């Protein structure tokens, strides 16, 4: 359960990295089936699961695990070799073995490494300890090259979810615990099965200083009931009880200063890891996820619904022109931007600006009494050809022999050409001519001769 949950986040990071390099595997909008399924987190993970399969995730994952097992095996061998080396190295010394020397051999290096680890943690070093070494190894080793992208994605998830630090700590402490455990077991076996003699030896310390040092070094084991072997008894080298006590004390030292702190730190690291594991969530601030979230939010809100549908577009049917007509008229529809009418309109009767319903009715009534030979309508092409205007032109059409439309606006305006096209399309449906102002004189002359 825990792994499979983590695995989904890992897949998301893997896909995210791939897409950052090679572009989107599929547009965010394509994941439409996932849009209404759960939170952004789960939808994103679903997408990643599907897409990671395309990238050969399963095969790579198997390989990744195989490589991790190989690495683990290497570390186990290292642990056994180093652990037994620690004990064997100590017990191979010429007898009697100095207890001070034994103390530093068994736990000194561990305490030093622990201190270094602590400094690295406090300084927030990128990949501290044995765990960091293992990751560095897996990133650089040629054998691991094929799964490098997976390791990077893994590292990214671990980092973003604040899992890396406890995981690396757990790896470091686990390694040292296993190493010291091996050493302790071997020491126990060797001390149980063979006879060794120990002594307190020093060159520069006085007897009193040595005794004091022995007390300090044996402080923790003493709390557990393992007193340091008495100085005098060992110096005389006769007391079998003292030798026994020395052996047991060494085992206690290794436990107290080596294994116990590592075990404690391992438990703390694992508990931290477990608690952060439970809080796994996608990082909304990650640019890739932010863009995806935005895109999905938009799609999810695309629930536009029709609440009042169109019953069907009404089509203006063109009417036949009048057979006879008299007089040439000009009018401005809706408004007249020019202060004076152009020269071609001088011989025409101007009906004024026809803007309201009553204006339109008046014109239609006038034409109804006497159809015109030509009606020129000046329009502002920058206005939309709305139904009201088109209906009026349709009503004028049978009341004149010729209906001409001309633009009244300056032509150098933004969008002018697009607007003209709209009017032309609307007028084409009515069968009405749209005339350029420059052609108007010829058109009017043609209208007069006909």
């Amino acid at each position, binding site marked *: 359960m825990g792994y499979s949950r983590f695995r989904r986040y890992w897949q998301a990071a893997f896909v995210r990295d791939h897409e950052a390099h090679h572009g989107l595997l599929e547009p965010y909008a394509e994941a439409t089936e996932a849009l209404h399924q759960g939170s952004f987190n789960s939808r994103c993970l679903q997408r990643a699961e599907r897409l990671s399969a395309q990238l050969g995730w399963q095969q790579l994952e198997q390989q990744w695990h195989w490589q991790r097992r190989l690495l683990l095996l290497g570390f186990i061998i290292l642990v056994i070799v180093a652990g037994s080396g620690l004990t064997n190295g100590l017990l191979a010394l010429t007898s009697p073995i100095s207890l001070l020397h034994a103390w530093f051999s068994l736990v000194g290096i561990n305490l030093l490494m622990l201190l270094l680890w602590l400094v690295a943690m406090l300084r927030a070093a990128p990949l501290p300890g044995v765990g960091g070494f293992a990751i560095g190894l897996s990133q650089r080793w040629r054998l691991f090259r094929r799964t490098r992208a997976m390791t990077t994605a893994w590292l990214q998830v671990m*980092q973003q979810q604040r899992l890396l630090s406890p995981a690396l700590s757990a790896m470091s402490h686990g390694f040292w615990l296993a190493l010291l455990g091996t050493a302790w077991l071997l020491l126990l076996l060797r001390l149980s099965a063979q006879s060794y003699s120990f002594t307190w030896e020093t060159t520069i310390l006085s007897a009193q200083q040595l005794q004091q040092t022995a007390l300090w070094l044996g402080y923790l084991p003493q709390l557990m009931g393992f007193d340091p072997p008495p100085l005098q008894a060992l110096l005389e080298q006769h007391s079998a009880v003292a030798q026994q006590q020395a052996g047991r004390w060494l085992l206690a030292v290794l436990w107290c200063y080596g294994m116990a702190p590592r075990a404690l730190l391992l438990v703390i690291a694992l508990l931290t890891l477990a608690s952060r594991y439970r809080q796994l969530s996608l990082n909304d601030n990650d640019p890739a996820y932010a*863009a995806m979230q*935005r895109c999905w939010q938009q799609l999810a*809100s695309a629930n*536009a619904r029709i*609440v009042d549908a169109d019953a069907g577009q009404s089509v203006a049917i063109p009417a036949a022109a009048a057979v006879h007509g008299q007089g040439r008229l000009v009018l401005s529809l809706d*408004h007249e931007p020019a202060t004076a009418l152009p020269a071609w309109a001088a011989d025409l009767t101007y009906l004024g600006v026809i803007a*309201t319903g009553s204006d339109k009715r008046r014109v239609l009534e006038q034409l109804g009494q006497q159809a015109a030979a030509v009606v020129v309508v000046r329009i502002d092409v920058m206005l939309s050809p709305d139904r009201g205007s088109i209906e009026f032109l349709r009503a004028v059409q049978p009341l004149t022999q010729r209906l001409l439309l001309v633009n009244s606006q300056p032509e150098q305006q933004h969008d002018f050409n697009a607007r003209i096209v709209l009017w032309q399309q609307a007028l084409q449906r009515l069968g009405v001519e749209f005339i350029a102002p420059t052609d108007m004189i010829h058109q009017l002359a043609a209208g007069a001769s006909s």
Partner: protein
Amino acid sequence: MSTANWLHIAVVGHTNAGKTSLLRTLLQRRDFGSVAASPSTTRDVVCTEMTLTAQFGLALYDTPGLEQGSELFDLLNSEFADDSYRHDGPKQLTALLSSPAAQFQFDQEAKVIRQLMKCDAAFYVIDVRDPVLPKLQDELSLLSRCGRPLIAVLNFTEGANQQLALWREALAKVHIHQQVSFDAVAPPQDGLEQLFDSLAVVLPQAREGLKQALVTLQQQQDLRRRQAYLMVADLLLDVAAYQRLVVSDDAQQVQAAIATMQQQVREREQATLSSILTLYGFSSDDAHFDLLALAEGQWQDDLFAPETLKAFGIKTGLGVGSGAAAGAGIDLLLGGASLGAAAALGATIGGVYQGWQSFGKRLVSQWRGYQSLQVQDAIVALLMRRQQLLVAALERRGHAAQQPLHLEPMSPLRQLLPQHHLPSLVDQARRQPHWSRLNAEQWQPSRAREQACADLQVQLRQSI
């Protein structure tokens, strides 16, 4: 989610006034409805929801354009002039809606009136480039009889030939005093605030909800800006930390490596452009860096063209590449020498270990006959400026815009861009090749990079 407290707002107006455009910008959705220059583009009443807080939102109704306002107004005054309607506009309009004229001749107008009477208020959208025509005034009189508050939204205020003063006067004459200038293509920074304030005036019961909604929207906007600059910071770190090792006396290899680097940086910039566009609710085709005319009469917007740098006011200065890398936007670093001072400084302040790691690796590479290629500072600066320009432009762009956004170097927005040099974090990235995703072999996510990215984002945001 309960929508009991939601406001229902109709968006009404003359045909082609920009009702759907206004909704696109409000909803920040390029794909909402259909926008065209031709009239009668919207023929149905379409409802869409704008969730603002957990309990509050707007149900916005896009309505067909009014096209026969004058004729309907005349009909109302002639056929429905009963004395009982004199002081009861809604009753008069209800009678009109049940007439045959409303079903046939004025079916579009009937839909608008019907919807408005069901809503709490309406945005009456006006194309202020249009003159104040009697037919438009008739529409206003007609709508004001619906008994619902109308807020005039003055659209296209950024365009030429606007008749804003005349419109304000005309609106006042029909007692519409709630007027908001809101250009759907280039909305004002406080446009939404003005709209919400106007709504709060006419619908005081929704004041609290609108206030909270504004706070939420502001937070969302801040978050979006932060995320956008995070994307830019990510890009800059990737490019600044990008390095390739080459055998320095092999000109062919150097040229090939430079071409690869240039291409990868271009692709990386394009990926950032797309992500930022998506973040702001636009598609990848909605913006491009404007083409620059080169001396030969060719047009291009190449990141690595010297003209591009010049156009963005970036001086390349001395030490621009050397040997085979000259003029390519890539620096061929002479082993430890060119980075020596930086590495030494970094080692002192940033930690001996990291400084040595970078410096030491360079020395080893140099010893082995390799040299390092890096993208020039000028190119990184250009990337920074272009992306900052993009974000600034998108923040001021409405989703109703039909034309792609041209990010031209001479844009007035350029004044917003900082004149100072690259942030120091970019310099820091130079010494961290593992910070760049473009260095596929060395890329390694780290807390330090994440922090640098977050810090750089803050610097970029504050500098504009």
